[in-house]
């Protein structure tokens, strides 16, 4: 059993590895499998994706190759008799421990990335450079609240805008809420996705690279009702100076947020009054 398995594997491994190595840069460069990535976190996610693709790709080619090889080689022949064996202890050990090692490797590889992206302790919430934006989702629209040029929420120059406008090269911290059902903010190019859950305020962050200045789309990735498919949002990334100018402009052009909770107000952010967030 073992020697034949070994020679079969040896015959397969070299060409498979070659194909995988040749194909990999092609995938990575042209975004053949993944869309363009515009953040360092996104790049790290992509690297992990390609590592997993390489490992699973080899396993895929190896196992499917063996399957097809066995199907052809061991097809029934007139008068042939199958080899009688009920198993092999060593083979079981090998094919339990080897995948276990690979799985452990993949598990360990991703700890750091996940921690950097998701752990509250690693988020740039205290970074003086960070831009904080409040995101409020409702059926079927995204609303964004900006602190305005004074960088403090709950003041006169706060404003609400239907588009996410952020600078490149600076961390952007999102405080996210939903007022009705679960929504999920998804920007494929940022490799960013986070559910917005009614009853919770969820913090998430991203940092777009300089040079990525253009318009992007925000998708809602969680079924939120019959018009879920229309919940398309827009995001614009600007160079820092342009963004600061735009921020001042929007703050001046938009009326201040009515935090008084008056029933006549159509301002959706009145449901997220200053008493429910700490002034920063």
């Amino acid at each position, binding site marked *: 059993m073992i020697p034949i398995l070994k020679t079969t594997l040896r015959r397969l491994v070299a060409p498979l590895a070659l194909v995988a190595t040749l194909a990999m840069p092609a995938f990575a460069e042209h975004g053949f499998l*993944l*869309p363009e990535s515009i953040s360092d976190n996104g790049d790290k*996610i992509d690297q*992990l*994706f390609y590592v*997993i693709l390489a490992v*699973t790709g080899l396993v*895929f080619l190896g196992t499917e190759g*063996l*399957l097809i090889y066995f*199907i052809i080689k*061991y097809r*029934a022949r007139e008068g042939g*008799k*199958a*080899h*009688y064996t*009920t*198993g*092999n202890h060593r083979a079981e050990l090998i094919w*339990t421990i080897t*995948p276990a090692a690979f*799985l452990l490797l*993949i*598990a360990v590889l*991703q700890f750091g*990335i*996940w*921690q950097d992206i*998701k752990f*509250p302790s690693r988020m740039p919430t205290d970074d003086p450079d960070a831009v904080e934006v409040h995101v409020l989702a*409702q059926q079927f629209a995204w609303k964004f609240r900006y602190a305005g040029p004074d960088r403090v929420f709950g003041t006169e120059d706060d404003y609400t805008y239907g588009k996410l406008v952020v600078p490149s090269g600076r961390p952007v911290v999102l405080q996210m809420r939903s*007022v*009705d059902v*679960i929504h*999920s903010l*998804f920007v*494929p190019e940022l490799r960013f996705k986070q*559910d*917005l*859950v009614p*009853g*919770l305020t*969820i913090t998430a962050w991203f940092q777009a690279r300089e040079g990525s200045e253009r318009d992007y*789309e925000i*998708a*809602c*990735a*969680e*079924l*939120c*009702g*019959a018009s*879920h*498919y*229309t919940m*398309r949002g827009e995001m614009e990334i600007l160079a820092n100076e342009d963004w600061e100018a735009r921020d001042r402009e929007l703050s001046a052009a938009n009326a201040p947020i009515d935090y008084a909770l008056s*029933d006549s107000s*159509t301002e*959706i952010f009145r449901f997220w009054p200053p008493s429910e967030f700490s002034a920063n």
Partner: protein
Amino acid sequence: MNAAAAADHGHGDHGHGHHEESFASKYLFSVDHKMIAKQFLFTGILLFLLGGALAVGVRWQLAWPFSNVPIFGKFSPENYYASMTMHASVMIFLVIIPLLVGFFGNWCVPLMIGAGDMVFPRLNMWSYWMFLSGAVFFLASFLVEGGPSGGGWTSYPPLAVLQQGQGVNLWGLGVLFTGFSGIMGAVNYITTILKLRAPGMTLFRMPLVVWSILITSILTLLATPVLGSTVLMLFLDRVAGTSFFVPDGLVAAGKVITGPAAMGETARAGGGQVLMFQHLFWFYSHPAVYIMVLPAMGIVSDILATFARKPIFGYKPMIYSMSAITGLGFVVWGHHMFQSGMNPYLGLSFMVATMFIALPSAVKVFNWLGTLWRGQIHFEVPMLFALSFVGMFIIGGLSGIFMAATPVDIHIHDTYFIVAHIHYVVFASTVMAIFAAIYYWYPKMFGRMFNKGLGKLHFWLTLLFLNGTFMLMHYVGTQGHPRRIAVGAWDESVKAGYKYLQDFHWANVVMTVSAICLGFAQLPFFFNLFWSMYRGKKCGDNPWRANSLEWATPTPPPHGNFAGPVAVYRGPYEYSHPDMKEDYAPQHIEDGTPVVQAQIHS
């Protein structure tokens, strides 16, 4: 523990083959496990048609948004979301689980352990009727105002609580009743397997099908009550004004409708936890994925051994790996919730558990390959389906590793990548195993052989078009195509969809055309199934020259199953033993020479 006693159980003093039963007691309120199995089979196949039709509706909408769907007409967004929700619900609760557990469990367990019937035949009958009631609830939702639930088969609140109409209520009742059916079946299988095995049938002489049903039943028994109570809480939130999953401060039409601020105007107290539902739901629904694949693994193991004419490679490791899947299956539910707002620290522990649940599946794949190694592979129709199960399960298993990786999951969560993954596991693997099993046991069930040419046609067309449908889903998924959207690429005429998907619209069209072909590819199967029942060639008791006990019965097996007492002398996989003249040794023949068997039944 005695087959003769077992044979007496459940039908008292009925004589074999001489007793005339009324139509109702024979076909409707039967307590015979084989008839109940057939009830599950035909109901399941009928509903499979419905689930398939709904899938074509969903695919049609994605390829040609808001155009005329053949027969039905133009979809509204509500139609689309109802089709999507009901496709998944029907396929999971009314087709896959009932076919695997209700049909195969019922059909195989008593026959394969040498029992005359299930230990609780009347509970068995009730299990079918509970299932049928559940199906009626699901189907009734198509008739009520507002139509079926459009909240997805996951029914996440608050959406599922806030949705108008009776659709979600009927969905909940349907889940509750099919859940009862599952629990009743599970109790019956566990007790039957532990108590009614023929003399000599030790636990480690049971075919892997029986092991898989035993393990699945334990899983069902432990997990289903959680789903039942969760759905009941959701139901109460909808009809009784409770707030298990309704938080404070929900806003509708510009007003706060839940929580202390809203009291007085409405009866909603609020204060519930939205994420709690997801935890409870996936505590069942993740194990449910294993309920949907473990019996398929058992079936495939048996079929591979029979047609490779070899003992299963690593019989005990196969059992241990199924047990490991079951154990780990209870601690991985959080991997559905990595992006849900669940504590990210918790995400890491679920990730590690999820990585390791891939291990027993890998071990099974290697053992199946080991079973084929140096075999004599006969390409009968059931074998073709079983081999394709192995090939497709590898794809479905490996794609799971991408989603188990928490950072990668950020990008591919809730995209078509996960849709591809679930369909490779549940359609390309499990449904293929169901086909394998129907073809494999067909001659025993109906006493006639199916048409092999049609069977092969069915196999090749299905294999081709299922890959045409599901393979591209990986691709659009990694490009960021969200699941559950009614319009993919930006469509100027309806002002919806995403511009970043415009380059991939061709893939949606290809998938839809392929899905329609996949539907038509089932025609040879349906024709074969019914035609061969009356016109197929008559066949002997053991056409596949297999070892397990079901082939020792007269064909088709009568009420009470076995012609006389049976005893078991060896394991189920003694194929091609060098000391034997024949390449198989039925479990019930003492000296292992199958010729003796022919004398018994002639």
